[in-house]
């Protein structure tokens, strides 16, 4: 694979199992050079194609965007007021640092990564996902370098209770599934096509696929997961690569070939030794250009709604980056900075490119999204929508869920369900959907309009109790739901409604709350 990546400064990826230098972890990288590099590269293309960039977004737009992007929910009304009224010159940079330090940062990344790493298939309905979600959350919050985190996943062993990362092997419980997922998520390539036929866009052959899958064939499951999960003792199930337990099953169609890196060498692995460490070293090596590119591209896409290579996990020669040099530079810098994830987010969020308004100008409304002349408008993910709704209208009561388990199987499934996971399952679109595309259908919209959770009268109480004039209450509603103050016109319209219902103003406020929650502005990250 790396031979084909001829545009890269790394022409050949020779297998050298050099231990990645720990020096990078000792110093705090300075993201400002990366921020400058982003703006230079984006502006250069805008200039060369004579496209005008939209101006810098206002504080309210920035606040809501960076909250949703970095910690997965909208800000509170109090936070919004404080930020909007602050006169600190570098308040945006400070807010970015503050959010990266929040524990909700890890929670948000864990939401994103657990859905990428742990497929929600029927085979997996008993798998205790939460253990790995917690593992991911902690790792992201501790800012564990990305290469180390991936090595920990790729070589994970031991009991679930002691190492949540082993869940990866229960949720992808076959060498071919592991191969598909690991190459797609960590290298950004769609190798799975080559499972059944030679890849249509690349020269990857079926043998290359099974050569990679061969690294996972010594992995075994110790204990009976199904039984343990039903007995609520899943924590004792273990993953190992030491000859004990039941090996993961290869499908009947598997080709039996020795372990071989994708278009690389066949490492010598003794019969009694584990194969995964060699794979983990190869995959996460600083010399593996795909590894850093895949992560840079993925995090870029989280923020901009599309990758520099897009679709993000389909990197091959036919799928050209919009800004090739920028992707190479960011990837090289990501390696040089010791795979520092928070630093990468910080560098991008501080850029002028990220801080543009999403409002198009007459001059750039026809420009394609790959120009980054204005910010993309993303639709809230189900997790972002739920967490933001809960902040406004309160959490639904989980009791209803707990009472229903009639037997051990149901109880095991129910342990994986919460009001949040049910909401997410109901609102979730296609796993690979374009984040700028609106995916909700009639059932979801009916719930937004008519479900008790969205019509919770109690949600108004704290807003009304904050007291003040009708004008202040209307402002508070806007600050709570849309993280901004109303425009003059909006305020007047709302006050007219309140006056019309002066016998029962609560009804007018309820109507305004309903309208704001059902507005496209609330549903979008703009």
């Amino acid at each position, binding site marked *: 694979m790396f031979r084909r990546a001829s545009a890269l400064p790394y022409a050949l990826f020779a297998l050298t199992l050099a231990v990645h230098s720990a020096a990078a972890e000792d110093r705090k990288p300075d993201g400002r050079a990366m921020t400058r590099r982003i703006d230079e590269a984006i502006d250069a293309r805008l200039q060369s194609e004579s496209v005008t960039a939209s101006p810098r977004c206002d504080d309210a737009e920035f606040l809501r965007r960076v909250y949703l992007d970095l910690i997965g929910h909208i800000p509170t009304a109090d936070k919004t007021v404080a930020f909007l009224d602050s006169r600190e010159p570098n308040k945006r940079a400070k807010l970015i640092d503050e959010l990266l330090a929040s524990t909700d940062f890890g929670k948000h990344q864990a939401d994103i990564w657990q859905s990428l790493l742990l497929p929600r298939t029927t085979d997996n309905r008993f798998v205790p996902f939460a253990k790995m979600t917690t593992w991911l959350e902690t790792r992201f919050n501790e800012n564990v370098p990305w290469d180390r985190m991936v090595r920990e996943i790729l070589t994970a062993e031991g009991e679930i209770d002691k190492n949540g990362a082993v869940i990866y092997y229960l949720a992808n419980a076959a060498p071919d599934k592991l191969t598909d997922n690991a190459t797609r998520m960590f290298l950004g390539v769609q190798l799975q096509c080559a499972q059944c036929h030679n890849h249509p866009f690349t020269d990857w052959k079926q043998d290359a696929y099974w050569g990679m899958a061969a690294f996972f064939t010594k992995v075994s499951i110790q204990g009976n997961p199904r039984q343990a999960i039903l007995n609520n003792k899943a924590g004792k199930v273990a993953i190992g690569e030491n000859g004990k337990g039941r090996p993961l099953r290869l499908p009947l169609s598997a080709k039996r070939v020795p372990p071989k890196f994708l278009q690389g060498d066949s490492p010598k692995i003794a019969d009694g030794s584990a194969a995964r460490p060699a794979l983990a070293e190869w995959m996460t090596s600083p010399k593996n250009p795909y590894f850093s590119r895949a992560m840079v591209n993925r995090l870029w896409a989280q923020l901009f709604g599309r990758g520099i290579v897009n679709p993000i996990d389909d990197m091959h020669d036919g799928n050209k980056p919009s800004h090739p040099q920028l992707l190479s530079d960011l990837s090289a810098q990501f390696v040089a900075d010791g795979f520092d994830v928070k630093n990468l987010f910080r560098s991008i969020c501080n850029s002028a490119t990220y801080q543009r308004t999403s409002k198009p100008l007459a001059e750039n409304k026809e420009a394609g999204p790959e120009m980054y002349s204005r910010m993309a408008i993303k639709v809230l993910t189900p997790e972002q929508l739920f967490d933001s709704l809960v902040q406004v209208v309160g959490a639904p009561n989980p009791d209803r869920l707990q009472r229903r388990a009639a037997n051990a199987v149901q109880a095991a499934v129910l342990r994986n369900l919460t009001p949040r996971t049910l909401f997410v399952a109901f609102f979730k679109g296609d796993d690979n959907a374009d984040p700028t595309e609106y995916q909700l259908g009639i059932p979801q919209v009916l719930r937004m*309009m*008519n479900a008790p959770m969205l019509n919770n009268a109690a949600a108004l109480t704290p807003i009304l109790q904050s007291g003040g004039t009708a004008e202040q209450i209307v402002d508070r509603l806007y600050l709570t739901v849309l993280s901004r103050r109303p425009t003059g016109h909006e305020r007047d319209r709302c006050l007219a409604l309140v006056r019309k219902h002066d016998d029962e103003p609560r009804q007018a406020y309820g109507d305004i709350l309903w309208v704001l929650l059902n507005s496209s502005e609330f549903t979008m990250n703009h």
Partner: protein
Amino acid sequence: MTFLNLSRRDWMKMSAAGVSAVSLSGWFKVLASRAAAVPSKHKSCILLWMDGGPSHKDTFDLKPGTKDGGDFKPIATSVPGIQIGEHFPKFAKLMHHAALLRGMSTSEGAHGRAKYYLHTGYKEGQGGLTYPSLGSLVSAEIGRSDSPMPNYVSIGRSFGAGFLGAKHAPLIVNDPARGVENLKPMTTGSHFDDRLSLLQEMESAFYREYKADAGADHKTTYQRAVTLMQSKEAKAFDLTQEPASARAAYGSSRFGDGCLLARRLIESGVSFVEVTLPQWDTHQNNFDRVKSLSQQCDPAMAALVRDLKQRGLLDSTLIVWMGEFGRTPRINQRGAKPGRDHYPRAWSSLMIGGGIKGGQVVGKTDKEGATVVERPISALDFLATVCEVLGINWKKQNNTSIGRPIRIVDKGANVLKEIVS
């Protein structure tokens, strides 16, 4: 993600444009008025899903007098020479409308994977994609874009739209007696209308300033949902509109209510309705349970066929009866009341109406119902035939969001030509 060769977004834009062109009459009246021009040749499908895997030897492929042939007797049907199980007496009289497929032979023997495979035609997890279920495919291919009703309704849980997107996801009805969740506003009707017009007014600035495609899609989806809430067709979800005698004819069971609701939905223009009858996983106490389940199924299925026929809708409505697999020819030795276990190698399904050539059996099993000896029918053959009957080009490729072309039915399917007229 294509819809009549347009991308979903193109289609949404067209709808939105159509709406704004007549915006003086307001957001929410337009789609309802356009729905009047519904093509009359529209085909629909009702999938009666026998969840758990019904025992073929105790329902539609009896083997009397053989080892482990079971307790039940065969009975004659309206078609000379075709016999079925004794607990389907009402349906037996309608056999001339049906093709009985006794050659079903598939490869998945675990519930989850088998249900997925029979609903989508693809193995779960294959190629890292989530595949659309049959209902979503029907919605995308022949669903009515201008109808106030959703194109895919599932009474009970089913599989979703996968890479086709939420627009083709099923509208789930958990309890047919209660109808669609959240269909009614939590305020009075006029108060809800006030809220809607306020929403429309307050939204306009955001649309004007941000011009997001997603905003247009949001608007269109809200319009469709509100149109459904306010449409006369939505009454189709309300079973209290039926006389007590109708519910009784369908057997007054939850499944019977589901079939009655399915009929009402088909009449009002829904393209695909799935109704689930659970509990066919008869590892134990097989005969008592199959008898009881058959007695729930028989009146409902028979009333459904009769009602559709009477309304002139049977030729345009294909009814499919199936589960995820059959059950072992052998009776197991579990406990005092033994049962039969999972068996995908040989089993039976039914297609009824839809303009097929009825009154015939396709495929044949050996004397113990263990192996298909004539015309084995794969899941792909089966799904391609369903598509063919509904007028869907099953060789067509849909594009996933990363541009991978995926056929509606994968290569290797042979349509059952003998039943397609």
